């Protein structure tokens, strides 16, 4: 009897330890980047162009580039994702078509990011002749986050009680009216959570933009959809692997990593906060 109890305590502590290890790792990663990167952060670092072969100056073009790329990705993926999810939840019945769409969405979400990069290179950069630019990078990233947006929107729509729709339909509204005027407004905060998470994901990806948008250095800020851009994740990689001043560049890389990490954590934190608040306010 006693041995059984001891065994229970042992295994339960071990499983608790797993959580402690991983949360500790998370703390270590964040703490390390903060400790090493905080020294590099100042107003000049955040607002200036790089100077002297990446050893001085700032990373403003990379920050701007990452913002543009992520927003571009969402501008492309959000309408498509929204419509697809509305179809799946509000319109389709269980059937072949729906099963195929579901397989498509799931498979798309499993495609490795570097494969998206190659696809973007072949289609947008070479075949359509965009060249490496914001447009090509945004489209590639947009494709990659499309499944995230579809799934989040689906979950949001499914969580709206049937009675909402029935009440609206009973009043004589069409299905489309019901969706746009009743279901979507009720689901909007939850959809927003999914969209924010997708922004965070797009902002942090490197492989898809390596060949479709990002360069190590631009002389000027981007001037349009067809400009090449610098981007935070690619900038970190390039600082660590290219260039001629490894020591100074590593210091810059810590600073850049801190900016990227803070950006992504802020975005993800916002999404989690929104979700918790929405759950508390939910009246049904």
């Amino acid at each position, binding site marked *: 009897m006693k041995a059984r109890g001891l065994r*229970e305590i042992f295994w339960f502590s071990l499983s608790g330890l797993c959580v402690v290890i991983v949360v500790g790792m998370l703390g270590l990663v964040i703490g390390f980047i903060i400790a090493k990167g905080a020294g590099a952060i100042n107003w000049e670092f955040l607002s200036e162009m790089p100077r002297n072969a990446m050893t001085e100056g700032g990373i403003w073009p990379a920050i701007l580039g990452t913002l543009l790329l992520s927003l571009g990705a969402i501008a492309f993926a959000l309408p498509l994702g929204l419509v697809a999810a509305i179809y799946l939840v509000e319109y389709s019945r269980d059937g072949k078509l729906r099963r195929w769409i579901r397989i498509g969405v799931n498979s798309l979400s499993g495609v*490795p990011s570097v494969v*998206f990069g190659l696809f973007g290179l072949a289609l947008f950069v070479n075949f359509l002749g965009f060249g490496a630019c914001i447009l090509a990078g945004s489209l590639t990233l947009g494709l990659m986050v499309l499944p995230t947006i*579809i799934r989040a929107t689906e979950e949001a729509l499914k969580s709206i009680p049937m009675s909402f729709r029935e009440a609206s339909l009973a009043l004589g509204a069409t299905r489309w009216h019901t969706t746009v005027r009743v279901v979507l407004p009720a689901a909007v905060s939850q959809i927003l959570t999914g969209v924010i998470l997708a922004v965070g994901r797009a902002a942090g990806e490197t492989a898809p933009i390596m060949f479709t948008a990002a360069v190590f250095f631009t002389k000027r800020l981007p001037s349009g959809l067809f400009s090449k851009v610098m981007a935070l994740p690619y900038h970190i990689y390039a600082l660590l692997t290219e260039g001629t001043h490894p020591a100074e560049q590593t210091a810059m890389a810590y600073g850049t990593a801190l900016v990227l990490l803070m950006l992504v954590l802020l975005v993800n934190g916002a999404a989690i906060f929104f979700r918790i608040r929405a759950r508390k306010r939910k009246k049904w």
Partner: protein
Amino acid sequence: MARFTSETVVKPLLGFFALLSLVFLAGILVTLLTESGPFFGEYDPLEFFTGTQWYPTLQTQNAAGEWASDPRFGLLPLLAASLQVTVLALVFAIPLSLGAAVFMAEIAPPALREIIKPLIELLAGIPSVVFGFIGMVLVAPFIKELFDIPIGLNGLSASIVLAFMAFPTITSLAEDAISAVPRDLREASLAMGANRWETVSRVLVPSARSGIYSAVILGFGRVIGETMTVLMVAGGGAALTLDPLSPLRPMTATIALEMGEAVQGGPHYHALFALALMLLLITLGFNLLAERIKKRDFK
């Protein structure tokens, strides 16, 4: 009447846009096929699948003593590197994930769970380039010291970092699977006098096994497709080896590393698309397998 017509137009229109993700998937497949087609035309596919050397820029001397380009595109060293790193990462990640999943599903009080879950989500949100950076500056030096080897950038260092990247995926799916086991089973086991650990290990985990397998398979797909971490941490050696302490160059890293140098439209360029095609087929296969297996679970 106007409303009737608007509804009849709306549904097919929405269906068309919903189908786009399938169209995109097909587009990716077709693009990779057409871009790697020339490669399989010029280069013997058998040599690609069985070749043990990957030297895209190799030059050899012919009988007349002239140097000529004689590239070797052997898939095996890259595939072996990908598999090694992925399997090793899962060896680290599976016990951690299962432990954490059991803890979250069965042991942690709800308040604690509400704290841990967002933390795991934050972990999932850390960009892979940051993980790669951490691997370079923290994990690799540690492994170098530990095994007393000249360079710490190798397969083992990469798998340690990858394990933490696979953790959120496997944990959350495994936790869902364990939580989905019907209450009756849990209560029946406890009523029989089993304690909570015995219930977890002999009833809940075995009942949720197809969900757990599916979680692990999805984790496999995620890790084998991961690019930046292996590019920065795995070391980049293209020799065929089974030693995780040697520098490795998985398929994803090869594509990312060499695409910048490959001549557009040349054999090397098309060979990299062939690699991407292999990668896509592997991940698609594992995804479909995971879905197949998961269906056997409880509703």
